[in-house]
């Protein structure tokens, strides 16, 4: 499932993309895919991602694309600026994915008017060097 790219002049903080356990998440984002890590042996979702499986003890796992839709779980509007890369106000949102028991984080501009359970969809914020971070926007 390929999603919408949003080309930005700068990503405020760039993620490490080559970590053994988490790198596949950002590699998929560069392709416009939201992907999570699953155990290849027993199918257990391994989120936050790591290679080894707590359910079966296996060490083979794989990245699978998941639907880029979710619902608002919680949010905070940050009004006191502490980090130079993030001018206030902005709203940090926790998103529960649809169809799969996993949660991700997003960032919305300003004082977003949100409700718990509100539908959101993924968007891929892409920096000029190609580094891409999945983010979320309210369904129109």
């Amino acid at each position, binding site marked *: 499932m390929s999603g919408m790219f949003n080309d930005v002049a700068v990503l405020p*903080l760039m*993620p490490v*993309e080559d970590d053994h356990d988490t790198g596949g998440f950002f590699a998929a984002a560069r392709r416009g895919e939201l992907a999570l890590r699953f155990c290849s042996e027993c199918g257990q979702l391994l989120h936050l991602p790591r290679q080894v499986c707590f359910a079966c003890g296996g060490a083979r796992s794989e990245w699978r694309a998941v639907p880029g839709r979710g619902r608002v779980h*919680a*949010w*905070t509007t940050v009004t006191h600026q502490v980090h130079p890369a993030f001018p206030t106000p902005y709203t940090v949102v926790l998103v529960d994915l649809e169809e799969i028991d996993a949660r991700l984080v997003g960032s919305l501009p300003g004082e977003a008017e949100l409700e718990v359970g509100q539908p959101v969809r993924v968007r891929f914020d892409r920096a000029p060097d190609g580094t891409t971070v999945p983010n979320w926007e309210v369904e129109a």
Partner: protein
Amino acid sequence: MSEALSHRDRCAIAGIGATEFSKDSGRSELTLAAQACRAALQDAGLTVADVDGVVSCDYDLVSYGAIADALGIADLTYWGQTGPGGSGPCAMVGQAVAAILSGQATTVLVYRALNGRSGRRYGLGAPDPDARVGGRGAYEEFFAPYGLVTPGQFFALLAQRHMSTYGTRYEALAEIALACREAANRNPAAQMHERALTLEQCLAARPISLPLRLFDFCLETDGACAVVVTSAERAADCAQPPVLVRAVAQSTGPRVQPGVMYPMLMRPDITVTPSQTVARTLFSRAGLGPSEVDVAQIYDCFTITVLLQLEDYGFCAKGEGGAFTESGALRPGGALPINTAGGNLSEGYVHGMNHVLEGVRQIRGTSTSQVTGAEVSLVTSAPPPGTSALLLVRG
């Protein structure tokens, strides 16, 4: 649980010591730590010659070698460290207990020293804008790119979810700040001793990360605290009435998640903290329950942190922390007076080590907000990722 292996009532906190709490100590963390440790030894009627163990917090800049050398300890035979940060203090006492009961030490100094205002300020501890974030087990790459970069923002998410799920009012959070401030106003050593606070001020305060406002945030403090832990037998010969470690416990709970703090947001219910599972272990080890607790020092980096713990320790049901708090339970004479020296919110932010000292004072009967006849004193350390807690009783 085998009685043979139980630590119940077998060790004691024999001495407590602290520096002044300020915005600028004018000296190093090492000096602060050494002064708090010497004060704790003097309080106990012990000397440096009695000390053979130290336990510190993983965030502390003062190493075991530095403190041993600064105090002139002849031979340190045990040193340990735990954390992260504010989740440490009760577990640090637990490590001292473990060292003593396993014969690795006889008298252990447990200390926490920081220049939290004039030195490194944790509230600004956000990532370097020029470096990539995450990797190597940090897991910040799932949080920091979205501007989730401070503990206050993290706890604001928990507060928002608790409010939307349970109808918790902001007034409940304000009441926690007010209860701590009232205690600080009676404690001459508290940073906020002379500063009054009203509900109106709380409600009108500058928003920081909504729903949290200025007075939902703890202080930033320069200072140090230390305690002396020894066997119950040795403590009986010390200068102060012994305060026994009835039980100590650590817990992560299930699916703790990697990283330090932000990954807890991936747990199914973000309004439940590992305090829920640590409480089970703690009360079971103590043979006591929440209804038998007379006074509590509840870790308060933020007001919401207290509210969640009140539920998780079983002082009220999940979701009822707001009503419990607004009933006045946390004030003197209430069902559960808390943070009777002022806590991190109004006494000083010594990362919860100050909570251990005040828990001891309540059993000794020397608090400036003494709960009359207090016999069971609870101290908690920060959740998450894991947490720790301590029950103190009279010797």
